[in-house]
């Protein structure tokens, strides 16, 4: 068994046999590994360059042009006009700045809310109880729901008629004093509704990561704290929090990056669910509708580039903050 010939793939270009393998002269193995390493990486790297690298550079190029889909006119060089319009032309900058603001609101509310909820759930679920696995699965379940479906379920829950789930529940609780309210259609609650359904769908994911962080805290630390008569709050404050600080920062920053990418639920609910478009539009929604409904590729590319810059800044902050902690 062990003396069979090298595998066909490895045999190509092979000079010295396996016998000399262990103390093999460095240079030849190096050059061989160069070929294998490159061949192994090639498919994935080629795919990434073709479908991420090139389109991204193309986005930058397009954003400096006036390009319209389906237009007989050739694209013309536009300089920074698309960016200038994005920020100063009242017709365009209005919706765009509103979208930026909405994204910001979404992130500012969702990040602490979802991280906090996930932490609370993770602590609750970090017990040795029977059936704890079942509870963990229940809280994780919405994560596997496609957003297109989540949006539909919540469209029904938040339906504006008095037969909507939330409205009729409030009616029952308030003994009939609560009238029907248009949660998705009202400018004040549209974004709040998107936030609620997004947190519902996403919190389980963060919870699982935090749970893993909690389980890495040595149990002796809690025993020691208990001997020192530390209260539950003190244990949380001085053992739990420092123990998962890195994980917590990671989760918060991951959430903030993901929160900037919010699109599916907004699109589904605006197009078919009576969601107030202005109050809920996000940067990605703006980019897609500009490209798709208005056929304005140049403009949409400029939005895309601005969006990318925001995500990069968030990601770089994430690396900065998380790195030093990991190297301890």
């Amino acid at each position: 068994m062990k003396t069979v010939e090298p595998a066909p793939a490895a045999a190509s270009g092979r000079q010295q046999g396996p016998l000399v393998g262990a103390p093999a002269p460095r240079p030849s193995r190096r050059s061989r590994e160069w070929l294998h390493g490159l061949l192994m990486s090639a498919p994935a790297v080629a795919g990434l360059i073709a479908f991420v690298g090139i389109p991204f550079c193309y986005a930058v190029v397009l954003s400096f042009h006036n390009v319209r889909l389906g237009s007989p006119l050739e694209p013309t060089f536009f300089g920074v006009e698309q960016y200038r319009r994005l920020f100063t032309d009242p017709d365009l900058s209005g919706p765009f700045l509103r979208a930026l603001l909405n994204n910001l609101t979404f992130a500012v509310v969702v990040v602490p809310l979802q991280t906090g909820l996930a932490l609370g759930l993770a602590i609750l679920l970090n017990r040795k109880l029977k059936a704890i696995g079942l509870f963990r699965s229940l809280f994780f379940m919405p994560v596997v729901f496609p957003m297109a479906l989540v949006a539909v379920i919540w469209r029904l829950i938040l339906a504006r008629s008095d037969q909507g789930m939330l409205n009729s529940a409030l009616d029952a609780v308030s003994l009939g004093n609560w009238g029907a309210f248009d949660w998705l259609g009202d400018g004040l609650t549209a974004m709040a509704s998107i936030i609620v359904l997004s947190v519902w769908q996403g919190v389980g994911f963060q919870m699982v990561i935090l749970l893993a962080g909690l389980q890495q805290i040595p149990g002796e630390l809690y025993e020691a704290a208990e001997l020192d008569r530390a209260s539950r709050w003190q244990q949380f404050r001085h053992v739990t929090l420092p123990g998962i600080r890195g994980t917590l920062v990671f989760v918060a920053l991951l959430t903030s990056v993901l929160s900037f990418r919010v699109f599916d639920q907004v699109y589904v609910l605006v197009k078919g669910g009576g969601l107030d478009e202005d109050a809920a539009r996000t940067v990605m929604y703006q980019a897609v509708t500009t490209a798709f409904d208005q056929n304005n590729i140049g403009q949409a590319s400029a939005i895309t580039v601005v969006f990318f810059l925001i995500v990069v800044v968030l990601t770089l902050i994430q690396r900065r903050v998380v790195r030093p902690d990991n190297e301890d």
Partner: protein
Amino acid sequence: MSTLTSGPTGAPLRRPTRAPLRRFLDYAVLSVLAFVFTLPVLYLLLGSLKPSDEVLNGLSGFLPTHLSFDNYAAVLDSLNSDSTGYFWQFMGVSLLLAFVVVTGGLFVNSMAAYGLSRLKWRGREAVFTLVLLLMLVPFESVAVPLFYMFNDQRNTLFIQALPFVANAFSVYQFHTFFRSIPPSIEEAARLDGAGPWRTFFAIIVPMSKPAFASVAILTFLTQWGSFLWPVLMVSDPSVRPLPLEMSVFQGQQPPDWGQILAFGVLLVLPVLIVFAFFQRWFVQGVAGSAVKG
């Protein structure tokens, strides 16, 4: 140091007195929270089994009356012509895309990660840095130029799958995992005459099941719910994946809520099945790459 001596004696003394009450409270809190949290799912399930006029009917939408599978039959019935598209076709497209993206992705990305983490060659640092840089680019920010580049490929299966096979984050996850494998394993394989390819496929892949499972599940979840790209690229029902059809189906006038929810259950069922089978792997994988990475 004090924990070693007094830990075992201190803890058991206190536990019995307060354990039952605490445990009861834990269960109570968890049950209430879990109930509230899963209400939307219950609503989906119950609604899919109810006549449509009872779905959007206030709190009685939760009463399990008049349950039947009529909605499911009606969905399959109504999506059964060339003009509406066929349900099995939507499902088939989604399954096919998921299969291609997941298996192709596992193959290509794990191989790249192996080449980048375990083989020593000049330039690999540069290539890996490139992969990390590309990981920073969210798909959303290349969607518009991709849409423009491949505009003449709209409504094909090929363009729906191909951009998602190579995935920088998957490469990174595999990379993290492979780095933790002791080098002695490869040295032993090399002494037995195995080259890098054979070492990878015959030894590394079988021992990396957790990494493969978690990457597979994450890819599957993302691909199954994929929405933005189909919105841009697909209008023809014959190549339309399920989530896009879900949004088309729910936009019908007048909406038939029972059927829409039944459609939703059919949409999420495959993921729930996969999740039920691979849950342990998934949780380990997600948590592992996050905490260690």
